Structure formats: structure tokens, C-alpha cells
């Protein structure tokens, strides 16, 4: 997962010190969300190319997409050293955000790679 560590290297702590009154630095959180978005886009493009080369068709391809997204989520959580609440404000953000956004890029690169390798 070399792509992760590069793009996630600028994640910053957004929740400082207080535990009963959570305070978030909005700018840091926005930066974190951006990093998450970039990671997902990148992984969906790579996943698309891999799916095309391996020759997945139909349903298997979408299953592979979800697999790639799950791996991305796990990678991001591991990068945040499992203390998710100090980087984003809720679990949903880091797991589900941008899930569907990478789908179109995935399909494009999947079609592209599949055609180049298998049809032509």
C-alpha cells in the first residue's frame, strides 16, 4: 500500500486534548477528508486496471470494487493508528465517505484495461 503512506502523510490531528467537549479544527478535518478522497480515487483507478487485466466480468467486477474499497478503508484506519476519533469526527466518515464516488473511475479503467487486454 505504498500509495497510502504517500498521500496520507499529511493527516493532522483535528481533535485536541478535550474529551468531554470535543473541539475540531475545521481546517485540519477538511484536509483529512481530502486525503481520504484522494486515496480512494487512486485506489479505485488502480483497482479498475487490475480488474480489467485479470478479466473480471459482470458481478465479480463489482465485488472486486467493494473489496478494494474495504482494503482502502482498512488501510486508512491503520494509518490513523486506530484512534479514529482524533482525526475525523465519526466512524462513518473514514469508512463510507467517497465509497460511490470512485465507482465511475473504476468502471472506466476497468473497461479500458479489459478491452485492451482481452478483446483487442
Amino acid at each position: 500500500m505504498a500509495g497510502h503512506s504517500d498521500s496520507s502523510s499529511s493527516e493532522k490531528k483535528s481533535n485536541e486534548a478535550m474529551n468531554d467537549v470535543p473541539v475540531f479544527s475545521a481546517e485540519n478535518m477538511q484536509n483529512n477528508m481530502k486525503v481520504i478522497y484522494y486515496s480512494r480515487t487512486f485506489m479505485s483507478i488502480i483497482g479498475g486496471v487490475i480488474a480489467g487485466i485479470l478479466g473480471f466480468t459482470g458481478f465479480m467486477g463489482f465485488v472486486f470494487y467493494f473489496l478494494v474499497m474495504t482494503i482502502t478503508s482498512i488501510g486508512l484506519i491503520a494509518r490513523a493508528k486506530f484512534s479514529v476519533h482524533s482525526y475525523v469526527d465519526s466512524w462513518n466518515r473514514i469508512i463510507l465517505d467517497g465509497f460511490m464516488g470512485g465507482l465511475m473511475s473504476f468502471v472506466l479503467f476497468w473497461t479500458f484495461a479489459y478491452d485492451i487486454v482481452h478483446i483487442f
Partner: protein
Amino acid sequence: MAEDLVLDTAIRDWVLIPLSVVMVLIGILRYFVSKLMRSSQVPDPKIVKEGQVIVRARNLRAAANFIPPKSFLSRRVYFSNEENGLLFVPKGQTQNAQAQMFSDPNMAMDMMKKNLSMIIPQTLTFAWVNFFFSGFVAAKIPFPLTQRFRSMLQNGIDLSTVDVSYVSSRSWYFLNLFGLRGLFSLILGEENATDDTQRMMQMSGFGFDPSKSLGAEKDGLDIVQHEWALPKFEHRAEAVLKKLIR
């Protein structure tokens, strides 16, 4: 029964790749052109003032629990006082700000320019694709679709027995249009002009900024229940220090 068509390598070389490359390049070109064409607009001081007042009120609302009750209340009165509070706008003025914003020629020109810079390259590319690349099977999409999509995806191909997965170049164009958004956001950084939907949301959002959001901020401020959190911090500091000593 899916017959596996074998397509000419020339199609791959001269259709798929050039189309994708052209779309990427046009996207990059559009980004730079829109950057160059962004006219420097002198912001209206009244609007800037109102914007800053809103920011102050929002900060007060967010950090209300960190200041003692009396100072919070005095600040709140300053903002939402009926006579000269900053957030209180009499009914007559609210309509005025909206109308002014829409009839302002500079703003309208800006919006038009942004719209055009979005629509023209798309239209031109679409016409180009239709003219040059129609009438043959261009690609095979790896997943099956129902028969209803046939007319949409296979418009140049007049055989009805061909699998719906084999699509014409028009659908390759649309696939590129949607799929390259992600790629552009990676290449061009955050501020890129290629996403239509984001644009439209931005445009619909900023016309009503001053008048309505003042009222919204005032309501929000009135709702806040003040609970001074600082006394608890002493207990918390004590707990943390105790843990450290052990």
C-alpha cells in the same frame, strides 16, 4: 449465448486511446483557461462586512461553552438585539439584497462565462465524436446490461443481435466524461473546474447569502444553551495529573 467478437487492433489504437487522451487534454486546457479568465472582482464592502459578522456569530456559537455565562449573554445581546443588533435585519431590506445581487452585471457575466467554458468543450467534443467515430463497435463493457440500454449505448450500430455489451464510441465518450472526474481531481489538485454538479451547487448557494443567513444565524444563536465547561477542566486536569504520578 454471447459470441465473442474479435475487434480490430486499429480500433484500439485510433479510437479508444485518442479519445481518452483528447478528453484529458481538453480538461487540463479548460482548467488553465478558466484560471486565466477569472476576472478580479472588487468585493462589495457591505457584503464583506455582513459575511464577517456571520463568521463572528458562528464562532460565538461554536465556542459558547468556553466563556463565562455573563460574557456569553452580553455578546449574544449585542448580536440579536432588536434595535441595533448586528444580525437583526428589518423585513424591507432582505428583499433588496437579493435583487441587487441578481441584477449586478458583473456577477451575471461571471456566471455566464463559467457556464460557457463548461458547455462549449463538451458540445464540440461530442459533435467531433459523432462525426468521426460513429457506425462501428468501439468497446466491450465488462458487465452485462439489459436490453433497454441498447438504444442508448449502441446508437450507431444497426445490428440487433449484437450483445448489449458491445458499445459504440458515443458511450465510450460518456464513460470517459464521468470517469475522468476522479483523475482530474488527482492531477489538477482540489480547485478544478471539471465537475458540473459541484458548480451548480455553488452557484445556487451564493446568491442568497447575506439576507437569509443573517436570520438563520440569529435563530441559531438564540437557541444555544450555555453550559460553562471550564470548571470541569480542573477536575480533568486533576485526573490526568494523578494518572501521571502513578
